[in-house]
Structures are given as C-alpha cells and as structure tokens.
C-alpha cells in the first residue's frame, strides 16, 4: 500500500502546532488509502526526542535527521533530504504545512521531484486514484478545486485548516543522515531572529485583536495590547494603513499582502474594513467590529458591531473581559 509522507515542522527544538495539524492530515489520507504515515523530523541534536509526540497524532514511522546546521532552517539540504526520502520510498502523497517555512520547502521539494504541487490548501481527499484539493485564490474570494496529476503529489496545508486529532501510530523511529551537507549550501540561514517568544503568533492565536487608523497614533495600541492581555490567549494584528505609518511592524499586517488569519474570534478596533484588510480576516469564525462610523464596511462582515469611540469602548471591554475571566460563568 502506498504511504503518506509528512514533514513535521520544528523550531527552537520544539514541534510547532502546524506539525501536529500536518500529521493529522496525513493520518486522514493514509486511512483513506490504507497506507502508513511516515513523518520527517529535522532539527539540531536532540530533536529525535520529540518523535513520540508525532506518534500520538498517528505517525507510524518517524524519520529523524539531526545536524548542528539544522538549528536554523536549511532550505536546500532539507529539501534534498525530503526529496531523497520520497524517491527511496513508496509515497503517494507528501504533506507540508503552509507556514513561512513550508511555503519555501514544499515547492522547493516539488521542483526537485518534478511533481505536482498545490499550496495552502484548505481541504483534500484521495478518491480512488485522484488527489483533489481546495486552494483559495484571489485573496480568498475564489476557491479552486484542483486535481494533482501523477504520483507522488505534494501539497501544503493552511495553518488552522485541520483540527488536530490524537490517534496512536506505531511510532517506529529511524535515523536518517542529511543527504546534502547543510554547511555547504548556496542558501544559508545565518540567524533566526525571534521577537517576544511569549507572544502568540497571529497564525496560531485563537483570538486576534487588530487595530486600524482609528487608533490615531502608535502609542494608542496600548489599548489593543491591554485587551489582548485581558483575554490572555490573544495576538495583536494591524491594518496596512497602520504598518505603512510605521505604528506596527510589517509582520503584524493582516490583509491581502500580509497575513491571512482565521481565528475563533477577531476583534477589529478602529478598522474601516478596506477590501485589502477583509481579504486577510474574512474567514474568522466570529468577527467583532468597534468603529465610530456606523457606515464603515467592517460592519458588513462583523457578527457583532458596536458603534462608538474606540477610546471609550475598548477600555470598557477590557474591564469586562477581565471580570468575565475572573468569575467564570
């Protein structure tokens, strides 16, 4: 039976949430095809200790490759490693996360294999011989149903599109040597700079509080930060107008040319709702908008809206959320 290979992304010696999502996706496909799930775990010395975590989400085999140079993302040698594994095995499908790393690694590997690739997919199915996926395009306004021709076929799955599910896999561990010396690569990551690692990433936070031009000045993002802190499990985002002003870094921008997010709760603070911004957050499960202009387009997509001055409403909401957290209903 053909198997499913999945690349399990790690950073800083820890598996990322997207890794468990990708392994869950692989388990779903392997159950359809009757094959095994083989996971690849690449990192610095000691990463192999995380293999058992992948087995808990359904990995039957975990192929571990440790090398000092894998402390940072090594694009060329990692792609060579995955491509060699694919060539040496009986794999029908290879799954990656459509994370910043996976958006590089998946097409890089596909190019080496001359295989079909679909990126950033939100659903997938193996029906008979056909691998069919859904790929959002046109800033999320159009959904493509795509067939990947030939075997093996590769795809990357959008973060958050798969709900992780625990299913015990056999979890046999194999050790794999890098096939291409990471230190001789033409493209080398010389440093990985992480911001405040206590902060939740926009792609992983269940709640996002975003600020727009209605906040009037960079320092007023303190209001948004305070509301995020009251929730505890929230990240802070921004509109392009705000990042263009330099009030927040470009990496915080949610929208057509920024991050695409779909948290459980999205609170838009002082955001008018330009098309550019809506493209990045319209798939959020619950949207709340706070804006002084009742005609603002953001209210057209918001589940709940409050018309009012953000400088009055947001502190009141922060206080109410704090109180709700302290006295669970």
């Amino acid at each position, binding site marked *: 039976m053909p198997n499913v290979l999945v690349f399990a992304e790690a950073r800083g010696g820890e598996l990322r949430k997207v890794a468990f999502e990708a392994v869950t996706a692989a388990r779903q496909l392997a159950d359809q095809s009757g094959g095994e799930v083989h996971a690849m775990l690449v990192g610095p010395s000691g990463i192999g200790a995380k293999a058992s975590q992948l087995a808990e989400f359904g990995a039957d085999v975990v192929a571990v490759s440790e090398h000092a140079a894998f402390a940072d993302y090594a694009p*060329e040698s990692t792609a060579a490693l995955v491509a060699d594994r694919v060539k040496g095995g009986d794999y029908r499908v290879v799954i990656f996360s459509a994370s*910043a790393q996976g*958006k*590089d690694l998946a097409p890089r590997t*596909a*190019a*080496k294999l*001359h*295989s*079909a690739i679909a*990126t950033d997919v939100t659903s997938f199915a193996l029906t008979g011989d056909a691998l069919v996926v859904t790929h959002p*395009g*046109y*800033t*999320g*306004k*159009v*959904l493509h*149903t795509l*067939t*990947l*021709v030939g075997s093996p*076929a590769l795809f990357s799955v959008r973060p958050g599109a798969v709900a992780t599910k625990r299913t015990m896999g056999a979890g046999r561990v194999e050790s794999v040597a890098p096939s291409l010396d990471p230190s001789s690569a*033409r*493209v*080398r990551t*010389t*440093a*990985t*700079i992480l911001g405040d*690692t206590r*902060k939740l990433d*926009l*792609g992983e936070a269940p709640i996002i509080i975003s600020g727009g031009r209605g906040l009037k000045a960079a320092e007023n993002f303190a209001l948004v930060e305070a509301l995020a802190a009251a929730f505890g499990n929230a990240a802070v985002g921004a509109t392009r107008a705000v*990042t263009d002003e330099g009030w927040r870094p*470009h*990496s915080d921008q949610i929208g057509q*040319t*920024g991050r695409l997010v779909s948290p*459980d*709760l999205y609170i838009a603070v002082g955001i008018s709702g330009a*098309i*550019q911004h809506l493209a990045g957050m*319209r798939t959020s499960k*619950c*949207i709340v908008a706070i804006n002084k202009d009742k005609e603002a387009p953001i*209210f*057209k997509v918001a*589940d*709940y*809206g*409050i018309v*009012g001055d953000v400088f*009055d*409403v947001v502190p*009141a*909401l922060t206080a*109410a*959320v704090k109180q709700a957290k302290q006295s669970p*209903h």
Partner: protein
Amino acid sequence: MKIAVCIKRVPEMDVNFKISPSGTTVDETGLRWDMSDFDGYAVEAALQLTEKAGAGEVHVISLGPDVVQETLRKALSMGVARAVHLKCDRVPFDGFAIAAALAAELKDGGYDLIMFGKMSIDGASGVVQFGVAELLGMPVVHACSKLEITGGTGSARREIEGGGELVSFSLPAIVSIDEGIARPRYPSLKGIMSAKKKPLDIKPAQLGAVRLTVDKVELPPPRAAGRIIGEGAAAVPELVQLLQNVAKVL
C-alpha cells in the same frame, strides 16, 4: 548588474468576482487589471538595486495573451530597460508549466539576479520561482522583505511567524519578494513617453507539462449577516454575554 523580473497581469481584487459559465475560470468581463502586487515590489526593488549600484539594467518578462504587453509597458515606464512577452492564449494554473517557459527564456540571459513576487495575487500558489531555479540550477531565496547585494553575494531577510530569518546566498540567484521591501514608484510622464520607444520582444511561450488541473472554481459561501448591537461602552455587557453564550469564545 543585470536583473530580470518576472511579472504577471492580474485583476484588481476590490470587486465581487463572478464565475464564468465553464465553471473553471473567473468571469473576466469588466475587470480592471494591473501588475500583481508582489511583482510591483520586485520591479521597484530591482530598479533600486541598479540605481544604487550605478550600473546595470532591469528586464521584465511576462507570459500570457497580448494584453500582458500593457503590464510590460507599465514596467518600462517605471524605468525598466527591456521587456519580453512570452505569448500563449492562457496562463496555465500550474506554476511549473509556466516555469518551463520562463527558464527557456532566462537561461542564456546572463542575469545576476532573477526576481519574482513571492506569489501572484490571483493564483496565490508561489511555486514558479522554485521551478525556474531547479531548471536553471540556481539557488532560490523565497519571500524576501529586505535584500542587499554586495559583490557576488546577497543577503536577505525573510519574515517568519513571530520573527525573521537572515539569509545569505551566492549569485547568480533567484529571489522572490515579499511586502515591506519597497512601494512601487508611479511612472512619470517622461517614463511613460520613453516606454513607448523601449524594446518589447514577442516570442512564443514554450510551456511545460501540466500536472495541476483546475476542475472547478467557486465563490466561498457568504458570511451570514451580522448586526450592530449598540452604541458606545453601554453595548459592552451585551457583547460580552454574546461572546460567552453564543460564540462561546470567552
């Protein structure tokens, strides 16, 4: 320094799209078109690199039907020296099929740098640059938000979740460009006039095999209409109650 930038003509996104009767493409009636956002950043970044170096020139390539020449002319009016139109009836969805045609054109160009937007804003796949890199045997750096070239090496920053990666690479190389690097300049009147006289070569596109087919395109289900629950801080208690009991996110 000789730089090629691969650009795509895409529809403006500020509309409600319709599906064509075939069900496999977007209805193009009435759409306005422009250079894809990230490709615009790439053209600007390329122009700035040659301006800073005080030497070299930028070429642009676009693949598709005759209308892509409008997009190529826009790049010429921004300051690009030469354009190549790789002619085909339709742009295939499969980025690797496109990559074969681009690689055939680029391989003997003697470029130090070949640049792309990190993805097109319509297809949103972000794979073409990797296909070209593989076919040309060149290193590729994806999604650069900063880029510097010094002598025969490049350095770049890539945005990752919660931070960034600093990358160094050897030239010649392929780089794809993310937001934040440079806002594209507006063509000057002088630029627009001179663009009309700049060379624009037309060649047939030698597309590669298609391994990714579009079975169907559709519009996502619309969001259910929401409601404005009230005005000012007085509406906060009801919002909190809804978040707790209906949305169940608090």
